[in-house]
């Protein structure tokens, strides 16, 4: 059986024998399945309007996958296919299309491949930092609508130098957007809308990520930043969360969170050097920002400052475990309602306990949101991405208006 699967995998990932092409047009499912093996390094896969079923796997470098129309190019897994688009090459771009109803991931950009060359998110060995492959540089995911996918809508793993922007991620059983396993991700998550998922955005063992200018609302928990032993490169360090609207993450008509979280704006679990600044954090029924430990990873060097707080159950709670209390955690927020009361620096532990969450719904039954605007111009020129990106200075970011990115078009 295993040998048979490997043989099938080799067939599926192998070359068709045709010369690599700079422009590969996709107009039907068969062409979608073949496009990844046809495209040359530096090429463009242009998907014409239509609804497609299946998976697009791309391993060449500097490839752009572009939909002709964000709302009218739909890759639909029909609750049968595992992932919509999987990219493993350097400087990989996905833009201007919709991925929905995949059992695992809508878009997976990964730096790990299996023995057949297929992109995977982690191997069987889990937390083995020395064995983790070097991260693959460069990626851009933009103007993508990822809705109702069984694990993650947009997933970057073991990558560095990436931008995830202007996307809509909704209806994720785990999270709408996920960045994981990168010792220095050098990643920017900006101007996205994340709603109606168990978690809007998740960063796990993902250091040096800036999350700026996003609308993260109506999930069960808006953002989780965590460290663990399931992936290499923990703890998560130097996360910047700035200029986002993180509000009303109390929506019951969403997939249930695996750990029962609900009504929470931001969870910082075992992070080092997290900075949360200039965000609007409002209307989260249980807690705005919850700082705690994760396994034996302690929360350390956390800074909360200059955020706008309103109508959260608690604005901030600090509840590390007894064996991983951490240090240099400072909350410079006058007037914030905190647990313990009056947090400044290195407070004692609070007493907040996550209340029982309401029953949720299947990711497959989450309502589809209105369409969002796509690329203004769709041409046949591939993107040229750098290996590294510039991230904004958080000191230059201001608190956004409550209606940031609220309008669908």
């Amino acid at each position, binding site marked *: *059986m*295993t040998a048979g*699967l*490997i043989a*099938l*995998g080799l067939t599926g990932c192998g070359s068709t024998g045709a010369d690599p092409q700079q422009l590969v047009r996709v107009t039907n499912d068969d062409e979608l399945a073949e496009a990844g093996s046809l495209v040359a390094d530096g090429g463009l896969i242009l998907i014409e309007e239509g609804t497609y079923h299946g998976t697009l796997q791309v391993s060449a470098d500097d490839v752009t996958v572009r939909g002709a129309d964000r709302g009218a190019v739909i890759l639909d897994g029909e*609750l*049968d296919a*595992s992932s919509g688009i999987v990219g493993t090459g350097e400087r990989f771009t996905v833009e201007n299309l919709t991925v929905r109803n995949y*059992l*695992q991931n809508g878009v997976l950009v990964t730096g790990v491949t*299996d023995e057949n060359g*297929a992109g*995977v*998110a*982690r*191997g*069987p*060995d*889990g937390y083995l930092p020395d064995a983790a492959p070097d991260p693959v540089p460069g990626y851009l995911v933009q103007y993508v609508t990822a809705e109702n996918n*069984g*694990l993650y809508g947009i997933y970057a793993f073991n990558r560095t130098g990436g931008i995830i922007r202007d996307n809509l991620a909704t209806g994720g*059983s*785990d*999270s709408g957007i996920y960045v994981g396993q990168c010792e220095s991700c050098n990643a920017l998550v900006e101007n996205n809308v994340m709603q109606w998922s*168990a*978690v809007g955005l*998740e960063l*796990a063992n993902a250091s040096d990520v800036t999350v700026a200018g996003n609308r993260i609302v109506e999930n069960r928990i808006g953002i*989780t930043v*965590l460290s*663990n032993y*399931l992936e290499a490169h923990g703890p998560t360090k130097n996360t910047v969360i700035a200029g986002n609207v993180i509000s009303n993450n109390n929506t019951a008509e969403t*997939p*249930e*969170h*695996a*750990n029962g979280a609900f009504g929470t704006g931001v969870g910082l679990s075992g992070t080092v050097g997290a900075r949360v600044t200039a965000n609007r954090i409002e209307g989260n029924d249980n807690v705005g920002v919850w700082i705690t430990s994760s396994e034996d990873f302690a929360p350390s060097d956390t800074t909360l400052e200059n955020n706008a707080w309103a109508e959260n159950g608690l604005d901030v709670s600090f509840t590390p475990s007894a064996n991983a209390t951490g240090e240099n955690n400072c909350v410079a927020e006058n007037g914030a309602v905190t647990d313990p009361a009056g947090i400044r620096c290195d407070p004692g532990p609070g007493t907040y306990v996550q209340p029982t969450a309401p029953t*949720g*719904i*299947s*990711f*497959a039954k989450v309502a589809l949101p209105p369409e969002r605007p796509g690329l203004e111009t769709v041409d046949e020129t591939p993107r040229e991405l750098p290996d590294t990106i510039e991230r904004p200075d958080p000191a230059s970011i201001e608190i956004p208006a409550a209606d940031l990115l609220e309008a669908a078009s």
Partner: protein
Amino acid sequence: MRRAASVALSLVASVALLAGCAGGLSDEGEALTPEQAEQLANARFQLSTVDTFVAEISVGADDATDHLVARVTVDPENHVAWGTLSRGPEKLAVDTEIIMSPELYATGGEGAWQAQDWSGETATLPIVFSLSTDRPENASLLRQSDARFLGSEDDLDVFRLPTESGDGSSTSRLWLDGNRISRLDTTTGALTIDVDRDADPDPRPDAVDELVQ
């Protein structure tokens, strides 16, 4: 977030922990390929997408006095089931109607339903509800777990389910026809659940809705 998801299948596996030997299948099995991990990861969600399915749950040896067989129609979305419960050795078994939820069950039939908490040998029956779930497992986590591919038999792919401890001690196996669950059993013979995809569902008794309120 991810660890809890990873142990979901291990909860299914926890129905039996005694060691045993498989028939024509590998005892130790092989680590999952990515394709096998996805196949296993998607199976329980696939079963949740049907309106109802029919399952036969057999607990204990056929000739044992505490042998149970429940043939039930399962509503995976609402976690209720109804059908027939047979108690006692196979040739002497006494049948009664049953309606069940994960929390309790009732026997007796129309006008005489008597609700009871799960206890004793009947407490194994609600494991049938864990055959479906509202989301796929994380395939990557399954590859990191002690789940194993044991081989193929009767055109079905057989997997040993993961454990929370990761020590490979599970005796629970899931038999898959592609992504579709055909059987859950234990190598000890303590439990077998066969999913009959060709069977017509039984009519839903009115008392089902009262039970789950």
